[in-house]
């Protein structure tokens, strides 16, 4: 890592991002003319509204009384004892209303949309968590909601599809390509362009053109702010290590952003290695990608020789994306965050282990972070600490887990 002065300089919050939305060379706005003005309107509105005391108050009220914030930090003693190394703590975003961290930015985006006079929220979803959270926010605020979801994910995450429909949202299948998250984003952009006047595109992570990576990060940063205070209260210290899974990167940046300046804190982002490190078998963008442009922004991108996005694969639909947030791309380049991988089997093992040792069923996405923390903890002294962002609960995954791993774990009939 660079010297102290240098790190502070590189992470200066006021430079993150620049006015044009750049984190170093990443981010920005690579958009066709028709989208440029539409998204510019969102940037302007966010700039105008974000510091308005009544907006902040309204959002904070919903965080507390609707979502149930602050979410607790839990010392996973059984798991830590079993591993015999570092102490693992869990930031319980799984306990939020709707079961994941996604509600944090959905409420923010929905309130913003409402203030802009929009009547319909649209978005893509992978695992369905963002879709459910947005459908929930839409129901609460009296807005319509269309969710675009890959046909493959619709089958895999069916319980969430039903939840969205119960909440009054329309779930529209994306039917081209691999029919997963990337294609759902394509479909959402396409729909957005058809009617940018009444619709608001509430993108599901810290990806897409400026201002989304900044705005979604700002809304998610409450995770880290809370966790830092909670952890200090419990232990009197800062955590030695942070671990979070990285799909687009919203739950991880939400946790990390409060600790970026704390040099004693080692930070780890975990990407899905799927079934192997071969192109097409994983979605480990920061580990294997090269800088490129997708969906209107520059980031590390899994792509082929021709600059076409590469196919991706993981058991966790919410991590199944060939791009990644621009701020993560920057944090990798300056070596502030270490990005590493966990494969399908390691994730499913951690999924079962956390359930059986702590009575907590994690989302398959979050299970990647848990698996990585378990690996790290085993080789560390007992007085070391690891704070894991448990980004969501695994209710949505149980059908899929039974079907694929039922025999292995003795949970099928």
């Amino acid at each position, binding site marked *: 890592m660079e010297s102290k002065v240098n790190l502070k300089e590189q992470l200066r919050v006021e430079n993150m991002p620049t006015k044009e939305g750049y984190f170093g060379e990443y981010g920005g706005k690579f958009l066709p003319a028709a989208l440029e003005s539409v998204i510019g309107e969102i940037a302007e509105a966010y700039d105008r509204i974000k510091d308005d005391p009544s907006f902040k108050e309204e959002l904070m009220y919903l965080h507390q009384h609707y979502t149930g914030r602050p979410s607790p930090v839990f010392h996973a003693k059984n798991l830590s004892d079993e591993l015999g190394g570092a102490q693992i703590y869990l930031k319980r975003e799984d306990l939020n209303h709707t079961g994941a961290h996604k509600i944090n930015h959905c409420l923010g985006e929905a309130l913003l949309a409402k203030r802009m006079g929009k009547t319909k929220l649209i978005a893509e979803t992978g695992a369905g968590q963002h879709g459910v959270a947005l459908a929930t926010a839409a129901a609460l605020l009296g807005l319509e909601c269309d969710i675009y979801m890959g046909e493959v994910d619709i089958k895999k995450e069916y319980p969430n599809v039903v939840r969205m429909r119960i909440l009054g949202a329309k779930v529209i299948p994306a039917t081209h390509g691999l029919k997963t998250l990337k294609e759902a984003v394509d479909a959402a952009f396409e729909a957005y*362009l058809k009617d940018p006047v009444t619709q608001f595109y509430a993108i599901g992570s810290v990806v897409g053109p400026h201002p989304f990576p900044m705005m979604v990060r700002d809304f998610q940063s409450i995770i880290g702010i809370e966790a830092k205070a909670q952890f200090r209260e419990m232990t009197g210290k800062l955590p030695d290590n942070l671990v979070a899974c990285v799909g687009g990167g919203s739950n991880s940046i939400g946790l990390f952003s409060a600790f970026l300046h704390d040099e004693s804190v080692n930070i780890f982002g975990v990407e899905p290695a799927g079934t192997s490190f071969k192109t097409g078998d994983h979605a480990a963008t920061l580990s294997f990608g090269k800088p490129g*442009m997708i969906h209107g922004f520059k980031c590390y991108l899994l792509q082929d020789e021709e600059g076409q*996005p590469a196919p991706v694969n993981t058991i966790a639909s919410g991590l199944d994306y060939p791009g990644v947030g621009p701020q993560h791309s920057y944090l990798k380049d300056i070596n502030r965050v270490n990005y590493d991988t966990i494969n399908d089997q390691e994730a499913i093992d951690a999924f079962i282990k956390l359930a059986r040792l702590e009575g907590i069923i994690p989302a398959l996405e979050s299970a990647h972070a848990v698996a990585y923390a378990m690996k790290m903890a085993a080789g560390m002294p007992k007085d070391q600490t690891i704070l894991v962002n448990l980004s969501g609960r695994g209710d949505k995954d149980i059908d899929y887990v039974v079907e694929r791993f039922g025999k292995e774990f003795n949970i099928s009939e």
Partner: protein
Amino acid sequence: MNRIAQLFKEKKNILSIYYTAGFPQLTDTLPILETLEKAGADLVEIGMPFSDPLADGPTIQQSGQTALKNGMTINLLFEQLADLRPQLSIPVILMGYFNPVHKFGMERFVEQCRKTGVDGVIIPDLPFDEYREKYEALFTQAGISNIFLITPQTPEERIKLIDKNSNGFIYMVSSASVTGTKKEISEQQTRYFKRINNMQLASPRLIGFGISDRASFQKACDYAAGAIVGSAFINLLNNEGNNPEKISDFIQSIKKTN
């Protein structure tokens, strides 16, 4: 003078046709271009397929997916266009998204365009400021036009800046929408056409997105140097393939004056 500038100097009511390279068959790219020149198209835009095209509607998107499946690449496209000149005289523009071009290398791309006799380039997601900062000199030196898009929401200031730095024409997106055939040109669109017309820009303009038949083409010609037909032509290719007779009929049906 490059072929695009020549065309706009000499002709009115310009009909530009968009189609996707490597569609419906991989080897159709050049034969379709030949057919289009014979059939009387004035200008051609050849799409370089990208898997996630943010500005394109379902018709063009699907043609792109097919072309990618067929094995279309930028390298191959330049190979297919190796005998473009002097065999054909129609001005040719390549249109494609930034990432594949960036990966290919902008310098190499512009050089290949110059060598094969491609006259202009449209990269809809290349930011105008980034173009000016990094690439404008490259294009100017090679004599290749870089064409920018404007929409009803583009600020007047920006339009003037594009006009000043434009060599070729300005591509007017007829409404804030993805490509695709729409039936009629609305009142609102007409107001936009008039507004831009009244700006007295130096660059000629073509109107694109939603132009599909003679009526919409002629309406566009009332306010601009001509118009671009994309999805409607792709639909024809989808149904008929490279059928010279059908393509000729299609071009004539749009160009025919009352």
